């Protein structure tokens, strides 16, 4: 398989609205849905179509870079705040986060996959 198996492949997700600060697992699943539309998945409770109407799905290399930014421990915990907030916090604390991440975040500001 080209994609790692996820637990949500076998267990359907429940209908429940979640607040801000979605855990990373959900994000990866939604990225999956962008790429593999023919995969038989359970119903998504939050459809991304009404929110970002006519945008091309973001570059997988970009998503990979953002995910690596999330998981790098030097910039602190990643849950509960947007990626831009985390980048700016790292900047203020003098941890010198990479510049291209910020450019990418600002470029794709309205895409919820990117801004977290």
């Amino acid at each position, binding site marked *: 398989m080209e994609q790692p198996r996820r637990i949500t492949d076998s267990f359907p997700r429940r209908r429940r609205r979640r607040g801000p600060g979605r855990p990373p697992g959900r994000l990866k699943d939604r990225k999956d849905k962008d790429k593999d539309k023919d995969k038989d998945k359970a119903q998504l409770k939050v459809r991304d179509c009404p929110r970002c109407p006519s945008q091309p799905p973001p570059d997988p290399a970009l998503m990979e870079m953002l995910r690596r930014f999330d998981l790098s421990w030097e910039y602190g*915990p990643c849950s*509960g705040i947007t990626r831009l907030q985390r980048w700016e*916090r790292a900047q*203020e604390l*003098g941890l010198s986060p990479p510049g291209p991440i910020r450019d990418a975040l600002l470029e794709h500001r309205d895409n919820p996959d990117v801004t977290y």
Partner: protein
Amino acid sequence: MFSEQAAPTAQGLLAPPSGQPPTFPRVAVAGYSDLSQPFRLGERSFGRQYAHVYAVRLAGMRPGLERRARGRWGDDIALRRLSELQEGEKCCVVGTLFKAMQLQPSILQEISEEHNLVPQPPLPKYIQPSDELMLEDELQRIKLEGAIDVQRLVTGTIVAVYGCEQEDGRFLVEDHCLADLPPPLPWSGPSSDRFVLLASGLGLGSVSGEALLSTQLLVDVVTGQLGAEGEQSCAAHITRVILAGNLLSQNTQSRDTINKAKYLTKKTQAASVEAVKMLDEILLQLCTSVPVDVMPGEFDPTNYTLPQQPLHRCMLPLASAYATLRLVTNPYQASLDGVRFLGTSGQNISDIFKYSSMDDYLEILEWTLLAGHISPTAPDTLGCYPFYKSDPFILTECPHVYFCGNAPRFQSKLLQGKEGQRVLLVMVPDFSATQTACLINLRDLSCQPIAFSSFGADTDD
């Protein structure tokens, strides 16, 4: 202040009233700026976890601690992270302390109430000889032993420890250091005598009304309606009154309405309503004469987590008509006449008291200053807002006056630092219990207590 200048004019009280009673204009407010902006929260979101607070605390205090460590143990010491530790190598690690305490109350005790197990009663101190200290950095944690006082330190302090890792996985500490006093602020205090009155724990709404007379005496002294001309002229030198928390008494916090049946509690009013009305009337008398800063405390109607937001002005309709009333946050930081004040209503100090072997409140206050953090135990045992960007409780500059409200008794000390810092540490006593307030002279940073006593119903004579 009052006694030496008041005595010569005491005879004036026995003379017939003069046609033109003398008036003493209050000294003008020279410079006031409210610096408690970091403690004001706008939109609050509790959807975050507390890991961010600890992460920014460590990241924010790490450079200062590394500098201190280099200064103390030599420039060439090895500064390592816990993941880079090698056995037997002497190095220095900077991290957050965590004290594993057996008696620490946990959320599980609330669950035990549901299961009808006896919950642990609140104890004055939760320390035990079996407590253990652990050092955590961004990724790992390690148990500490050696030359480190486990009983004295509390969770959440950022320390630098010097020692080596042993084969059983523990870190043997040879020496440790805290962040020490923050860098000093330039002194631009007034050249003449100006006083600030600090009082806390007015305790309105309590069952016994004995402290009410003392409170009224306090208000009368400050507004100059008490004493002979000497005392009135002294009172005119008071430029500000700061009420440091617990304006309402603990009795107003009764939660009977939750436990009792509805038909018994239907028409009862919360005890805090009457108490706030009394507070409004007292503040009205004070505000007509002197600027007042009101800080909320543990039993006041505001949020529970630190930093406590100011009381809402709709609760004090009479007094908030005056611009001299300032409702401020807890902790509170301001610059009065060039003198930097920083203080809390006492929750941070009493929380450290519960989890540390230090018994003297003034010692704890001094220790928080040396640790570089107002309240290290938040958010572990003291409620705290989940900050993510920066920890506003880190002390970046050394205040000139550092006070704490609701202490059991009055204490004060002038601390001199190595880099020229001069800090006046003041423990403001609980007014409802001790009837004592503090007067701080801004010119020379001296502090004296001022006590009001009255004869109660049960005392003879």
